[in-house]
């Protein structure tokens, strides 16, 4: 035990000291923060300047008919040729030129928009909506229906679905699939990333020791299994530390970004933010009145966040993170021990990464339908369950299912460590031999 700890320490310290680790620790959250910042920039910089658009309408159907928005105005030009005006456009103060040809009612390609900047999707959408609506109105008019205006007004309805989730105890909770999806997505993606990143590090580490031949020296002092477990655990510690750095830095960056781009939120509300994530529901309750006065939408999100049980979420995240890592890291260790050089790892890497990729695909499907058979089975199979179950949990999964999935994962990672230990023990001292899967299975039968 003492020796495993010595090895674990060395693995941890050498990894944490590496430049690549430090760079990744800072870069990871910066990428996240950048992502947040971009979202905020896009969200907050919704064009505020008024855009004037020149309209040449050869069909004559739309004069003064296009609906003007707060930031979108139309001026209808007559007796101007499109080609002439195109040349003038640059010097004019128009944002763009809209040309509607006479055959607009019959051809979807009959409208052109000229501008020097790429118009945003919302502008083109607004214009095409307006034209479509006008054409529909005109077509309806041609049927000579009485009281058309009233009919049109009465059939216009607006729907905004608010979802409410029922629990077994009959409680009603306002839920948000958007938020659940976000949490699920980030959770399972993180597990996938960390398993792959640090699993490969375990493999490289084992391979390094083998090609270096230092393994000969070390194995005369410790058992192969101790060396393998020390490495797996040491790398795990590095992974956890990196993850914690990411969390802390991400929260910090997030708060900075928020303070810069959304300064209208009070410091008190911001202070409540991290606790909120940790699931302190009373903090939310206190914060709510303040916030709803300022920003009802954010308060809304908070009350939704409350509906996801964060204790369960964080608990299962830690469990699947560690369980999934142990399972895959031991397999990666076996691969590192079985081969002689980095290029030979490819043939064994593939069967190991395949279930991870399948897991990601099943995760996407689990978002669309968390109760589907695909989502269910892949959240039970231990090779994919860390990723897929993480994606299902925010939507609410029966505890028995989670328990079975966890139990299966535990049994499998113990099995994987045993299996990897056998392969490792034989492979680590075998040089210059191309190993096949058949041979590796033979190794399982060797006595130590």
């Amino acid at each position, binding site marked *: 035990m003492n020796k495993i700890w*010595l090895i674990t320490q060395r693995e941890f310290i*050498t990894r944490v000291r590496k430049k690549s680790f430090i760079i990744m620790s800072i870069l990871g959250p910066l990428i996240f923060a950048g992502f947040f910042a971009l979202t905020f920039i896009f969200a907050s910089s919704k064009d505020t300047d008024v855009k004037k658009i020149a309209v040449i309408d050869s069909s004559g159907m739309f004069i003064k008919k296009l609906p003007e928005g707060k930031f979108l105005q139309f001026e209808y030009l007559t007796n101007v040729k499109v080609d002439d005006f195109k040349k003038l456009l640059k010097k004019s103060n128009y944002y763009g030129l809209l040309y509607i040809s006479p055959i607009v009612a019959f051809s979807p390609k009959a409208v052109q928009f000229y501008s020097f900047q790429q118009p945003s999707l919302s502008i083109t959408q607004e214009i095409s909506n307006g034209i479509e609506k006008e054409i529909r109105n005109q077509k309806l008019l041609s049927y000579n229906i009485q009281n058309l205006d009233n009919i049109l007004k009465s059939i216009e309805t607006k729907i905004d679905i608010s979802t409410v989730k029922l629990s077994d105890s009959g409680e009603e909770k306002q839920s948000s699939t958007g938020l659940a999806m976000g949490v699920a997505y980030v959770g399972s993606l993180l597990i996938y990333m960390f398993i792959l990143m640090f699993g490969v590090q375990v493999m490289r580490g084992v391979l390094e020791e083998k090609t270096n031949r230092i393994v*000969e*020296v*070390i194995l005369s*002092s410790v058992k192969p299994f101790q060396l393998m477990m020390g490495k797996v655990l040491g790398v795990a510690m590095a992974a956890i530390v990196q993850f914690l750095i990411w969390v802390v830095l991400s929260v910090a960056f997030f708060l900075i970004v928020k303070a810069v781009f959304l300064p209208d939120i009070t410091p008190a509300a911001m202070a409540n933010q991290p606790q909120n994530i940790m699931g302190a529901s009373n903090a939310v309750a206190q914060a709510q009145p303040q916030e709803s006065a300022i920003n009802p939408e954010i308060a809304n999100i908070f009350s939704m966040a409350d509906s996801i049980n964060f204790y369960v979420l964080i608990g299962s995240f830690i469990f699947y993170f560690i369980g999934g890592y142990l399972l895959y890291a031991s397999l990666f260790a076996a691969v590192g021990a079985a081969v002689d050089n980095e290029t030979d790892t490819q043939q064994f890497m593939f069967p190991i990464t395949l279930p991870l990729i399948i897991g990601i695909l099943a995760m996407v499907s689990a978002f669309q339908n968390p109760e589907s058979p695909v989502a269910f089975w892949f959240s039970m199979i231990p090779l994919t369950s860390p990723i897929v179950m993480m994606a299902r949990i925010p939507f609410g999964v029966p505890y028995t299912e989670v328990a079975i999935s966890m139990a299966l994962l535990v049994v499998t990672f113990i099995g994987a460590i045993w299996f990897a230990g056998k392969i490792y023990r034989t492979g680590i001292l075998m040089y210059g031999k191309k190993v096949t899967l058949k041979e590796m299975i*033979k190794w399982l039968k*060797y006595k130590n």
Partner: protein
Amino acid sequence: MEIFKAQHIEKKYGEFKALSDVSLSVPQGSIYGLLGPNGAGKTTLIRIINQIFAPDSGELFFQGRKMVPDDVLNIGYLPEERGLYKKMKVGEQAIYLARLRGLSKADALKRLKYWFEKFEMQTWWDKKVEDLSKGMAQKVQFVVTVLHNPSLLIFDEPFSGFDPINATLLRDEILALRDNGSTIIFSTHNMSSVEELCDHITLINKSSCILEGEVDEIKKRFKSDIYEVGFSGDFNKVKDVLNSKFDVLEHKIVKDLNYVRVKMLHQHQDNELLSLILAHVHVTSFTEVYPSMNEIFINMVESSNQNQL
């Protein structure tokens, strides 16, 4: 008394028999040569002594009692394929390896200081291993091997990669360790170093032990009544006499002296040879020629291979 004894060791890898009924006993305080062609099973045997593998059957004894896992703490092993972590600093690495062998950090530090001074390696302490030359790295490995003061040391091809100066330094160190009471198992293909250092050997071929014993005794066992006579004078004077009674193997002239190798045709002819030749020439040397370890090695391996065919 023997420090290590192995009895009837068997080891299989799947269908392949790596060791078959191997027994050996290593006397305390000896330098024990473990010889054999490549693939004979030496490395497997060494790994069994180091408890990296357990034998399928057979028994191991250490210092007169059954071997226990903790006995490895009393063994130092310098493998043939040896390496260090390239990116790790020399001092840090030496402490790490010493601690894996059971030394405390303070103890390791104290002993490392002694050895680093002895080999004038103090300035390497904070260097990364990748910045050392091969010979320098070998020195670090040697220090790490002997650091915990083991009573049994196993060196597998220790001289490979050393320049003559460092090889001599290493040889002297090995002899000094022996003189201080350590026992050394020494595996090599270099027969001249076996002649020079070993007092006992075991020869393994194709998984089996084919020869074991004291070097001097083995040489006597394999001697074939060959004598070498050195003399000044005319070789032709003795040529016919010698040819009539003995088998003349070789004649050479070195620095005006004649050397003749003669094989006796029956035992106790040595005095006859000497008196015969004394009548004609001036004898400067007269020695019985023992076979070299190299010859014994090749003979034994070839004849054991033929027996198996």
